C-alpha cells in the first residue's frame, strides 16, 4: 500500500501542478507519526503508512488559502470528509487541491471502531479497493449511555469532565468544522467567552462549540484524540447528530461538497413541539 501512495505522490510532483503534499512521517517514538509536508521527490521517501497515522492531514490546507500551485493531501476516509466539510463551508476551493484518496485500514484511534466511511468520499486518485460501508450500530452508544441517567447524574458526569478542561483549545484548532477566521472565544470585546478557568466557563465553551459544529460534525474523532485531559467531546456533537437524525431524517455530514447544514434550512412540516 505504501508504495502505491509513494508512486501517486511522485506522479503528482511530475505533473508539476502540485506544490506540496501532506502525509505522515515517523517520529522518534515507534507508536507515533507526525504530519509530513513533502515538497519534492526526495521528501516522498520519508512517507510512512501504518496504524499510527492518526493525525488528520486535511485542516492544514486552510492555512494556505491562495496557493500558487495545488496542495496535495493524502486522505483517509475521515480526512476526505473533512475536505468535503471545508469545501461545503466555502473555506477551501476544490480546484486548489490535489486529493490522493487511500482506503483506510483502521488506525490506532478509538473512533475507528465506529467509522462508517473507510473509503474516501472525494479524491482525484484512489488507492486500495473501496469497501462496502454501513453505519456502525455503536455510533450513538455513548449518547444513549448518558441519556439513561437522571438530569442530576448527567450534570455531575459532565461537571467532572469540565472541571478537567484546561481550555488549551486543541479541540477547536484540530476540528475541520471549526474554520472561522476569528473564533468567537478570541473576541473579548463582545464578551461571549471569559478567560477564567472555572467549570461554568469551560461548560459555556464546550456547549457553544458543540452547538456551532453540531450540525456539520463529520465524526472524525480528532477532538477526542487531541484532548490532553481526555474529555468525551464527541458525545456532545453526537448528541446533536442523534437529535438531527431523529428529528430531521438520517444525517451524515461531510459526504458531498455542496452540503447544506440542517440549521441553515427549515421545513414547513418539521415536528411541532412548542405550540
Amino acid at each position, binding site marked *: 500500500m505504501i508504495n502505491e501512495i509513494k508512486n501517486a505522490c511522485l506522479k503528482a510532483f511530475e505533473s508539476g501542478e502540485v506544490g506540496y503534499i501532506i502525509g505522515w512521517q515517523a*517520529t*522518534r*517514538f515507534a507508536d*507515533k*507519526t*507526525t*504530519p*509530513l*509536508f513533502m515538497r519534492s521527490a526526495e521528501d516522498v521517501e520519508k512517507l510512512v503508512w501504518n496504524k499510527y497515522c492518526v*493525525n488528520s492531514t486535511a*485542516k*492544514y490546507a486552510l*492555512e494556505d488559502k491562495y496557493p500558487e500551485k495545488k496542495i496535495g493531501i493524502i486522505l483517509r476516509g475521515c480526512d476526505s470528509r473533512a475536505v468535503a466539510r471545508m469545501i461545503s463551508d466555502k473555506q477551501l476551493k476544490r480546484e486548489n487541491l490535489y486529493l490522493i484518496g487511500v482506503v483506510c485500514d483502521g488506525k490506532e484511534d478509538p473512533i475507528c471502531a465506529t467509522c462508517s466511511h473507510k473509503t474516501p468520499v472525494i479524491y482525484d486518485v484512489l488507492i486500495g479497493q473501496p469497501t462496502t460501508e454501513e453505519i456502525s450500530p455503536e455510533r450513538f452508544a455513548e449518547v444513549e449511555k448518558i441519556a439513561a441517567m437522571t438530569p442530576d447524574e448527567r450534570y455531575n458526569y459532565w461537571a*467532572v469532565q469540565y472541571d*478537567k478542561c*484546561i*481550555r*488549551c*483549545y*486543541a479541540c*477547536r*484548532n*484540530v476540528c475541520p468544522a471549526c474554520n472561522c477566521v476569528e473564533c468567537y472565544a*478570541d473576541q*473579548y470585546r463582545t464578551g461571549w467567552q*471569559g*478567560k*477564567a*478557568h*472555572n467549570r461554568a466557563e469551560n461548560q459555556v465553551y464546550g456547549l457553544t462549540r458543540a452547538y456551532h459544529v453540531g450540525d456539520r460534525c463529520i465524526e472524525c474523532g*480528532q477532538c477526542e*484524540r*487531541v484532548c*490532553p*485531559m*481526555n474529555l468525551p467531546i464527541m458525545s456532545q456533537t453526537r448528541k446533536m447528530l442523534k437529535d438531527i437524525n431523529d428529528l430531521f431524517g438520517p444525517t451524515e455530514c461531510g459526504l458531498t461538497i455542496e452540503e447544506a447544514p440542517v440549521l441553515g434550512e427549515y421545513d414547513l412540516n418539521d415536528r411541532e413541539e412548542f405550540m
Partner: protein
Amino acid sequence: MLLPKEKLSEALGALAAEANVIAPVKWEGDVFFMPYKGGDVCLEGNGKLPPKDVLFPKTEKMYSYSIAKGTMTEHNDAAATILFGVRSCDAASIERLDKVFLEQGYKDGFYSAKREGLAVIAMGCDKPMATCFCTSMGIDPMKAEVADVQMCPVEGGFTVEAVTEKGKEIVKKWDSLLDKKSKAKPAKVECSLNINVPEDFEKKLMDMFESPIWDDVTKACLGCACCTYVCPTCYCFDINQDVHGDEGTAFRCWDSCMFSDYTRMAGGHNPRPSKKERLRNRYLHKLAYYKDRHGKYLCVGCGRCIANCPAHLDITAFAEKAMEVE
C-alpha cells in the same frame, strides 16, 4: 534513613493532620497532583499536569472591589502546603519559577506567599518515562534542586534525607516510622530519550532566527496551547476582570504565547502573526533566551509537551535538527 513502602500512607497521614498535603493521585484515568485525602498515591511516571498549579494556579483571584461599599480587598490567603512526590524535573521548574517570580527585582506577592508556605518532598525517579529527557538538560533524577526532603525509591521503601530546616521538621514527624540503620543507596538512572546538547547551544539557536528549518519544523503545529498548559516552566499569565454591576474581581489566569491574540496589538498588528513565529519563540525561550540570561535551560526535560502534543511534535527532535544546521 529508609521509610518502608507500607508506612508511606501513614507518613502522609501524619503530615496531612497539620498542613494540606498535595500528592500524585490517580483520578479519571490519569495521575494528578491533588489534595491527599488518605488512600494510596501513584508513583509511576509523573503527574499529567505539573505541580506548578500549587504556586501559580490556572485562575487566581487577586483583588475585589465594590463601589457601593467603597471597599477593595486583596485575596492572598496562602495556607501552608506540603507538596509530596515531586520529581527532579518539576522541582527544577519550581527553581525556574522562583527566579522569575521572586528574583527579578519585583517580588510577586501572590507567588511568594504561596512559596514560603510550601514544603517540597522530592521523589527520585527509578523508572523514567519514554518521553523523559531530564538528564540531557543537566538534571539528576535522584537529586532535586529545591527539595526540603529528598526521597529516592530503593528496594522495599524510600531513602529519606532532610535537606533544609523545613525538611528536618517533616522528618522529625516521621521519626517513629523510619528505619535509621538502612544504608540503601538509590541506583544511578539514565533516560532512554536524550539529546547531547553542545555547550553554547543557545548562541547557535539565536543565530538561526532566520533559518529555513523553522518552516518545516513548525508546519505540523496546530497553534493550540496544549504544550504551554502542560509545561511546568511556562509562567505567562493574563490579568482580567470579572465585573458584576458595581462589584468586580481582578484575577490572574494562565495565558499562552501560542494563542493568536497573545501578541495582537491595538489596531490589529501582530508581531508573531502565524504559528511559525510563535513556536519558534517558544522553542527559543525554552532552549536559548532563558539560558542566555540565567545560565540554565528553561526546559527541564519532563517530556509532557511531547506526550500531549496533538500533532506529535517533539522539542528533542527539533533540537537534533537544529544541531545539524551550521
